[in-house]
């Protein structure tokens, strides 16, 4: 069991013929992902990595039954690619592209919401269901099958946690990088709900960071009512400066939410086990699934 992605998922890649797209599609295929199609307008009819390329997502879906799309197209075209996938009836869209303009993304986000489709990202590493399939750029070799679910806003910190757990002999069900952009698809709340209903997942690691209040929302909406399994929380950016404050307007909107203190407090009060370092996260997750960590070695 797992969430969102499995060996049966039929995956297409938008932008497969590009440099990033072709490299990562190859990695995805090497991991065992059921890669069925690529989409590159104007290259329909060709093949790459032994996979048929289509001009449009509609064509690709009709011909191959693809139900998941990984998006690797450049930022100026990525929001359009997301909407193309949503309009074509793709059920799960994973957008790796970073640097999408915010107004493009608020529009794409509204489009996807109206279509009732799941979006992960953008500016995210994607997701891996350990031992089954991968959509995105999480390094193949760090994953290990097991019972910890991971959901994270940070890419490289996700890798750190996965690697730390795997090295400690603790495997994962699905690791989901939801992305670090201000405008995101799936939130912590939505992913945690999926983990709640996944019997294979016995503990969940949640890596948040400052900004926005999705962590606070998740604490209220899904951790506090009870997930039925341990949640190990971590927030990065405790000592980061207020950063680029968006004038008065940003302060008016966010008030005191969005700070590390606010998030740590919300998670603690909701009953999550909050850790100070990634090493502690690994140890706590190992303990939660009854596998005392041998890590923090080196």
């Amino acid at each position, binding site marked *: 069991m797992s969430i969102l992605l499995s060996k049966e998922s039929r995956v297409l890649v938008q932008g497969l013929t590009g440099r990033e797209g072709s*490299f990562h599609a190859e*990695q995805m295929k090497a991991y065992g992902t059921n890669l069925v199609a690529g989409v590159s307008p104007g290259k329909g009819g060709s093949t790459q990595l032994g996979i048929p390329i289509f001009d449009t997502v509609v064509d690709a879906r009709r011909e191959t039954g693809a139900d998941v799309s990984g998006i690797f197209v450049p*930022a*100026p075209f990525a929001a359009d690619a997301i909407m193309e996938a949503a309009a074509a009836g793709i059920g799960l869209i994973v957008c790796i592209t*970073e*640097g*999408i*303009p*915010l*107004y*493009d993304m*608020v*529009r794409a*986000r*509204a489009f996807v919401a109206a279509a009732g489709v799941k979006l992960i990202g953008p500016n995210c590493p994607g997701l891996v269901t350990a031992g089954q399939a991968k959509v995105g*750029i*999480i*390094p193949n*070799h760090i994953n290990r099958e097991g019972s910890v679910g991971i959901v994270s806003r*940070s*890419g*490289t*910190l*996700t*890798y*750190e946690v996965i*690697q730390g757990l795997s090295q400690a002999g603790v495997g994962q069900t699905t690791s989901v990088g939801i992305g*670090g952009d201000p*405008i*995101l698809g799936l939130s912590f709340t939505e992913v945690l709900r999926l983990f709640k209903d996944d019997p294979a997942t016995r503990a969940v690691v949640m*890596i948040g*960071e*400052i*900004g*926005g209040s*999705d962590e606070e*929302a998740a604490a209220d909406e899904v951790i506090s009512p009870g997930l039925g399994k341990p949640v190990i929380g971590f927030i*990065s*950016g*405790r*000592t*980061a*400066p207020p*950063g*680029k404050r*968006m*004038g*008065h*307007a*940003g*302060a*008016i*909107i966010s*008030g005191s939410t969005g700070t590390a203190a606010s998030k740590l407090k919300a998670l603690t009060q909701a009953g999550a086990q909050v850790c*100070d*370092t*990634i*090493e502690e996260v690994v140890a706590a997750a190992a303990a939660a699934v009854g596998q005392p960590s041998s890590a*923090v070695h*080196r």
Partner: protein
Amino acid sequence: MKFLEYQVKERFRAAGIPVPDGRLAKTPDEAALAAGALGPIAVKAQVPVGGRGKAGGIKLAKTAADAKSVAGEILGMTIKGYTVREIWCETAQDITRELYLGLTLDRDARKPVLILSAQGGMEIEEVAETHPETIAKLHPDPWRGPLPFEVRDLIFRAGLGPLQAQLTPLVVKLYGLARTYDALTIEINPLALTQDGGLVAADGKLEIDENAMFRHKDLHGTDESEEDPLEAEARRRRLTYVRLDGSIGVIGNGAGLVMNTLDLVSREGGRAANFLDIGGGAKAEVVHSALELLAGDPHVKGILINIFGGITRGDEVAHGIIDASRDLNLKLPLVVRMTGTREEEGRQLLREAGITPEATATGAARKIVELATGAGR
């Protein structure tokens, strides 16, 4: 990218948002000329930061002689690190009431948000904290934008019904400007109600989404000279850099990883000199560019590099670091924590090159604090 007040007002004027008449001056004589033409004026330092008024960067001048003397005081001032080189001289306004009108991105709502308040001015943030009921908000649908009936409702909710006919087109125009310029934030504060019943944008802010700059190539560099030179240089190098006030330079890949590194430096008793994210997939040239940038900052007393080798192999990253520090003839203490693919090979290479490798991020943070400050724990 941020704009200076007068640049924002030029754009307001072009969009049909009323602004006071004004002229840009770079010398006291130009300010005197402006006062001669405009009558009593406000002389305002043009710096891309808030709090100018409290810092003495805004003064009134009734006559040309006043203007010359006031301009002499303001030009050359330093406000929050920015030297005042330009002043905006504009007709003094007879303000009876200060409103607030702004737009920013509400990340929780995943939408832009328009904010209107009858209690504008310098204290708007406090007002929002203490009297949230005086702040009216509207989340326009991102495809439709604010519809007239939604704007009217916003205005009535803000208790500004009598100004509805004047305010409605102003809100729509502000949103239009935000879209045109891909604004992360656009503000009119104060939006001044004058003695004669008119509304005028007495001050304005506009910050553009860096990710959308490909749509605004003509705007490149409009105000770059006014920025922190190191931040400007980082932008030219396409590095995500934020200056902080400590002494330990930090380089990492991924915003979360870098933020976490700052946290670890702080836990170990140090203070970071910067946030510097070289992005996912560390490449040798980028590491080189980042090291060069930090090496040129006199506040930096030591550098910590924290890299997760995902796709890129650890030994390649190590080669990049070694080459860069040799090319730059780097004398500062340098600690590298590198993990992921081929981490052992990478560490071996670093050790051979005389660079301290560390296996854990916590250990690396402790080490660089020791080396840079001499203060072990």
